């Protein structure tokens, strides 16, 4: 067991975690934030993407112990931090089954936090680690692009 302190969605939490606990398990099980999904467990699908210290990361490839001191944002925080992005996803049909959506949103959010007015290639690079099997990515591209315009205003 290791003791860690993290800031999760703006809230400071101190927790005892088992060594084999991944950040993903910590979020889904210990913190009951089930919006973050597991699709592959090997960092290939991006469904588990969260923002850790400002960067999009696969939470399946971070051990919970390693997150000590980190600031983590998950999809559950987006109504506060990026409602335009959520609305844009809804508006432009970026969601079908929705399983990739939380990860997709977090990758997009991490991008827009750093690059408010991204190029198409920057959007693609930000989302290259997020697999979507339903939408063919086209509406997702559009959603992120349109959201970036709204957020600027």
């Amino acid at each position, binding site marked *: 067991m290791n003791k860690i302190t993290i800031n999760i969605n703006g809230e400071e939490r101190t927790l005892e975690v088992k060594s084999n606990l991944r950040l993903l398990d910590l979020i889904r099980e210990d913190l009951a934030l089930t919006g973050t999904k597991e699709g592959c*467990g090997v960092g290939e699908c991006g469904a588990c993407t969260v923002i850790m210290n400002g960067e*999009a990361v696969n939470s399946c490839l971070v051990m919970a112990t390693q997150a000590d001191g980190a600031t983590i944002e998950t999809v559950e925080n987006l109504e506060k931090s990026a409602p335009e992005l959520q609305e844009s996803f809804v508006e432009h049909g970026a*969601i079908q089954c929705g*399983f990739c959506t939380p990860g997709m949103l977090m990758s997009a959010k991490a991008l827009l936090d750093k690059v408010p007015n991204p190029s198409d290639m920057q959007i693609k690079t930000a989302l290259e680690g997020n697999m979507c099997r339903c939408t*063919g990515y086209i509406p997702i591209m559009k959603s992120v692009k349109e959201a970036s315009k709204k957020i600027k205003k």
Partner: protein
Amino acid sequence: MKKVVGTKVKRLDAYEKVTGKAIYGDDINLPKMLHAAVRHADIPAGKILKIDTTKAKNLKGVVSVLLHDDIPTVKKVGPIRRDHNVIVKDSVHFIGDVIAIVAAETLETARKAADLIEIEYEEEQGIFDPREALKPESKLIHPEYKSNLVVHYPLRKGNVEEAFEKAESSDDEIIFERDYKTPYQEHAAIEPEVVIAEPNHQVKGVDVYGSIQNPFTTRKVVSIFTDLKLNQVNIIGSTMGGSFGGKDDIINVMACRAVALSLATNRPVKLAYTREQAMKEGYKRHPYFLNYKLAVNKNGKIKAMKINIVADSGAYSSQSFFVTWRSVVQATGPYEIENVQTDIKAAYTNKPYTAAFRGFGSPQIIFAQESMMDELANELGLTPYEIRKINGFKQGSKTASGQALTEHKVSLMEVIDIALEKADYHNKLKEFEKYNKTSRRFKKGIGFSCSYRGSSLGAEGVDTTSAIVSVQADGSSYIMTGLNENGQGLRTTYAMVVAETLGCTMEDIQFLTSQTANIADGGPTVASRGTIAGGNAVKDACDKIKANIFSVIKETFNVTEMTELVWADNKITNPQTKQEINFADAVQMTLNEGINTSAYGWWKSPDVSWDKETGQGNAYFTYVYGCQVAETQVDTSTGKIDMLNMVAAHDLGRVINRTGAEGQVYGGVAQGIGYGLLENYSVQNGIVKSENFDEYLLPTIKDIPNIDAILVENPDKYGPYGAKSLGEPTLELGAAAINNSVKFALKKKYNANPLTLERVFLGKDLVKKVRQSEVVSKERCEVPNINSKSNSETVPEKTTDRVSDINITVAKTLKEALEIMSNKKHWIISGGTDVIVQLRKEKYHKELLDISQIKELKITNEIDGNIVIGSACTFSSLIDNELIQKHYPLFIDGISLIGSTQIRSRATIGGNLVNAAPCADSVPSLFVYDASVKIESTEGSKIVKLSDFILGSYKNILGENEILTQIIIPIPKDKKYYRYFFKLGRRNALNITRMSIATMMSFDDNNKIDEVYIMPGSVFAKFQRLTNLEEFLVGKEFTTDLIEKVIALLDEKLESEIGGRWSSPYKIPVFKNMLRDALLTILEEK
């Protein structure tokens, strides 16, 4: 008046999906719930001699371990033939068979218990080719069925033999024959399979939750398996994380297992699969072997078509009966041919079984028949367009099964013309032809494919469905349906049908997730029938409600006919008198009269027919038509294909939700691109090699081009508001269109998909070795396991990949880290992107030391003419670092292409170097820049050249107590360097590098080559610069002749060093091309 149908509407379930509030199967946790694990077979075929569960049962926290004989009720299930053992008894039919199931207090305990089950086998030679399986001397995979043949569908129209005889003796006709092969395809819904079963004491039965595509099918299977009555099994589907046909049979057997454990323990039980388990056990799209033989008039008219297809059913019959039936109906494609003889057979093999997947027997035949049509056109000197125009279905044409297409608009040529015009096809043919004549390396192609497709189930089976619409006193309403929301947007479509029919607003409609207990069996959500079947049932319910309301309000309006009133915008209006009543008031008036405003809707398909002996009949009551045009660019140096554009025109009858319909097109096209280019589920001798998404490649956002979705509307008399089908046709066309496009670009034909690098470059696939992580894991395991807590003989193999038995120590300073290392060997973890993947396969206990939080290892500085990078710097931080950008652009080129943004956020340069994978992308440019590394221990430190640090694949000189702390790179001279970096991978992101090349050159005042660096990645067993080539080049004038000379030198080196390898027939010529491209690019730039 506001119309709803045909507009763009937001999904009903969008809010919960963008906020993380939607509850998917794995998000469900019930009080006192146990976790289940399965024990899969370890061999693809053989007898089970002995199963010992003692150790598993003795593990603390294990509540139940069940074997075949522990299940008191029926054991075998299957949609037609019950050949599928939920838990196998004494023989293994494929590697995904389940031998035992476990329930425990925690997931880790359940999985560990599964590992501890000891099984003795007598392995047998499996059969892995369905053509082999059909030979009379072949061993029977299911002896009880007396044959490996699962099903054979014949179709006979006209007289094929006579037509071939005539063609043979005629100067006007030719015989044309082709063979094709299509692969397995995995659904790869991003949500892996999960079910939860819970005892329901009220009905003395069970409730089942989870990722369930067809709740009524699951209910039936569970009922058969348990001997419970249908009314004792309630299936409550969770939000579905994608299905595409994939969460049917596999979920049904998983449900049986969870139910068995739940009944045995009297507790809720969750059975969740990892991706690896889903990939191993889950069924796939059928691989097909297809032979087409044609008699064709030289003017292009096809006189006869003889088709022989063998489908690989895998270990079980499953849906083969239905999938291959659709193939036999549609095998000729949308072409009117007088004489047709089709035979399709599905056979058992000892491989993962095959069943429903979006497309359902059509992508295979379309790949063959549409590739063939282009080849035929070429043979006859016709264009692909002309051959289709001559033979394509027209209004009233007769299909291969003798069905006259008279009941709907036959829009084949319409969709073709629309698609080709949008793609500017005819002009692009000329433009690309011209481009290809002058372009050395890249060739462009354009090609198309077309199809017709029967809507709904057709003569496959009873085709009905159910819906309940319940309008409340305030005008709001509920919908429940017998079909299931699988992510495709069916709830929204149904709500739109309600809004359109009753004239109420979308905001007033709620869709309730149906349970099998509260609505009549609506059949399966398959066959692109969600809209046409379910939409009709919903409309039927609305029409009944509308009639009831009308019976009350007609007096108020003083009208006699429903058509005299307009129902829209929450009002009912008489346009003649302008009199209007609010919808809610009309509902209240109706209820006040004691008349019901809720109704059951039901839909039964129009009549269809089929004669099993002749394959003749009216197979489907209506058809849809589609055409897709693919534009590609092929890198002839490597065989890599890039998509430039896709146009998809689909006649769907009528658009209900435009956003949803376009989404279906985009998604289907993307899956078609995957099928055409990337997706190759590999099974070698019955062993699944594509275990996860690192080996089974899905298209990323960088692999999908612009897609033009064109929705063509010819309303159908049988569809709700004229709507037909769209989901499946969008997937079935892409692979063939891409193949035709590539054929145009390269003037070569390919008879199998996907178009892998090797297939395009060599015309064939090479047999792959084991996946990278297996190699890693194996090599790691060969290192003596000094960390192992227990004797290695007693540690069982891991049967579920997971991070399990580890201990992590965190070091906050380098000093602390070095001290820890001096006391005991640890695996060092920093970014974790390699280590955690390896830990999932690691069966021994591991001590880990986390160095990711050591600040001094995360700093980059300029010191004495060098840039010194801390080993725990992430690639993202280096890409953003101005010093690195300024001095090492070649390094930036390389590391920018590592993995994905998420991987680069965590992966560190130190980790990449220590892991020393041959495909490590930071290495080639660091060799060019002549980097060194600093190694430290409590005993001291040393600096060594990177080239001396890496010994070979996954090997370095690091001692047990040492840590790589810094990377030291000399700052290059201040002069003009030309550089070129190229990374070859199968797709455009998340690639494991096949090969790479990093090149840097400078020239002196006399324009002679001054400095040159040539560094291959993933080519040789050990990283090495090609110094002999470099030496040859230095001091010479840089010309194309010189480049060819140096390529000849390279050829010798490659042949002598990697000549005998399995991959060399591809790697040698391609790496020569890569060097040529590198040098020519620099020459051009200069």
